[in-house]
């Protein structure tokens, strides 16, 4: 048998120096993120949840209500927003499996940890910017509504009652009481608003990690909702001693502390301080993404 070699000269290609790396992968991920409708849709829906619920929560205040923590009240939408934002985090990778795009992606960038890192950095950057923009907008809107409605804070309410009773409020207690509306200069307010944004962004990345492990959109979204909504219900159903010990580790409870200007929650005993809680949340996310990376490298695409 004679080998049939058609061309006298082999095909020559000229390659640029270096190789496909993180920068190229990130450029591709950026284009991918903004070229599907689901990104804009989920971001708009998240914005509606965060800002819309804030308007509802502050706009429906009646004169008899006493506002305990006006900052937190303007940020309550984040709890709904995280569910929608989590969907986007999941979709960033699960949509690739659902549509088969993952094969094109991994053919173009075969080093899989590079692909996942690019996704985390691009989506993470978008998540932080969007989340912070949303929490600051919600805060500004909420406080504007509260002050327009002359909302009564605990400070005024307690002062009035103390006057009726003819007692003096101790300084350390007075410091804990809030006005009807907050401004960024007051203690703990800036931290709560920034913290709420970071909480939202990190939960989006946690969802991305779950999506990487589970691959199926519906399954990963269920897992995410399970962690955020169902897990607290299960923990609450446990015997009190156990549930008290576990409650502070739950993402939702960490969130509650982070949104509060006082940095202590009213519901969870022995909660972590806002930044310790946040570090724990980042830890969960890093572990989830790490498992995701391992699974991505190990399994067939």
């Amino acid at each position: 048998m004679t080998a049939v070699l058609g061309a006298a000269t082999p095909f020559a290609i000229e390659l640029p120096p270096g190789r496909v790396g993180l920068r190229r992968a990130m450029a591709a991920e950026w284009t991918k993120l903004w070229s599907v409708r689901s990104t804009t849709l989920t971001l708009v829906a998240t914005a509606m949840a965060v800002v819309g619920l804030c308007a509802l929560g502050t706009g429906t205040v009646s004169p008899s209500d006493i506002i305990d923590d006006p900052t937190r009240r303007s940020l309550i939408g984040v709890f709904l927003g995280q569910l929608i934002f989590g969907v986007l985090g999941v979709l960033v990778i699960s949509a690739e499996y659902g549509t088969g795009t993952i094969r094109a992606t991994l053919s173009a960038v075969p080093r899989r940890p590079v692909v996942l890192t690019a996704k985390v950095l691009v989506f993470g950057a978008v998540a932080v910017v969007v989340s912070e923009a949303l929490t600051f907008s919600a805060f500004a809107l909420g406080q504007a509504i509260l002050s327009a409605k002359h909302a009564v804070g605990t400070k005024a309410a307690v002062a009035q009652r103390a006057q009726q009773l003819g007692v003096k409020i101790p300084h350390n207690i007075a410091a804990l009481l809030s006005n009807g509306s907050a401004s960024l200069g007051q203690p703990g307010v800036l931290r709560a608003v920034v913290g709420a944004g970071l909480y939202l962004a990190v939960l989006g990345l946690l969802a991305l990690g779950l999506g990487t492990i589970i691959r199926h959109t519906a399954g990963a979204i269920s897992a995410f909702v399970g962690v955020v909504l169902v897990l607290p219900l299960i923990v609450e159903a446990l015997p009190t001693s156990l549930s008290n010990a576990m409650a502070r580790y739950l993402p939702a409870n960490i969130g509650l502390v982070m949104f509060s200007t006082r940095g202590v929650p009213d519901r969870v005993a022995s909660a972590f301080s806002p930044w310790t809680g946040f570090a724990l949340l980042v830890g969960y996310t890093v572990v989830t993404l790490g498992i995701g990376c391992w699974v991505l490298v190990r399994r067939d695409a």
Partner: protein
Amino acid sequence: MIEARCLSKRFGNVVAVDGLSFDVLPGTVTGFLGPNGSGKSTTMRMIMGLDSPASGSVTVLGQPYHELPWPMREVGALLEARSIHPGRSARTHLLTLARSNAIARSRVDEVLDLVGLTSVAGKRVGKFSLGMGQRLGIAAAMLGDPGVLLFDEPVNGLDPEGIRWVRTLCKSLAGEGRTVFVSSHLMAEMALTADHLVVIGKGKLIAETSVADFVAGSSRQSVKVRTPAQHELSDAVINAGGTVMPDPDGSMNVTGLSASEVGDLAALIGVAVHELTPVASLEDAFMELTDDAVEFRGGS
């Protein structure tokens, strides 16, 4: 070029690819032929580093796929038509791929033109027909102007004009000195497109040969014989070293003897022959070759 060595892949208990070794050389179109489910796609995916082999290895241009510095500029592949997000336009899909491998934006329009999709470049891929999807997949493979091309069943869903276009494309790419590896389950298509063949069945290598040799080797082998004295004639054929396969239509297929040899034999033992046709069908040769190696078949 592509080199597979003792490549194996298992899915649970099913052995999809079983100790496969072959070379795909530059400058020719190499056909990858096998029945459906014979392991062609799995092999292609292992070449592209998407599936990892259970054992053995495969290299492209001398290295494992994931070590290529600029994968899309070195290897292009059409794996499955639908590896594209239906919500993206054809142009954006190609643009994301181009970005990852530092390929100029102008090249996107070039390949869209090459595959004839310029007029629908801005349309959402979800609205594409199967044939348009195939064309877009081929455009993606050509995007980096690579020296090695893999096409998995490229003519699926294409109309006759499209099929001819793919055939011409493969040949001209090989003519430029590129390595072209094309899979198909259709022997006739491969005979027209490929110079060289890698034939597999049930994940095992059945033949690695030039198309010319494959055709020459198979076409003289089968003779369709119709006779009222089937029993006597088949005994005689078997004694003379041939093999007999009864055909459902009442005739029999003789291999190992030529038509004239069968005729002489019939005269010698004195039986009548109603039909004596040399069969040169490549499909038959292929079917025969892979007969034991068909994974799925309809009930008969």
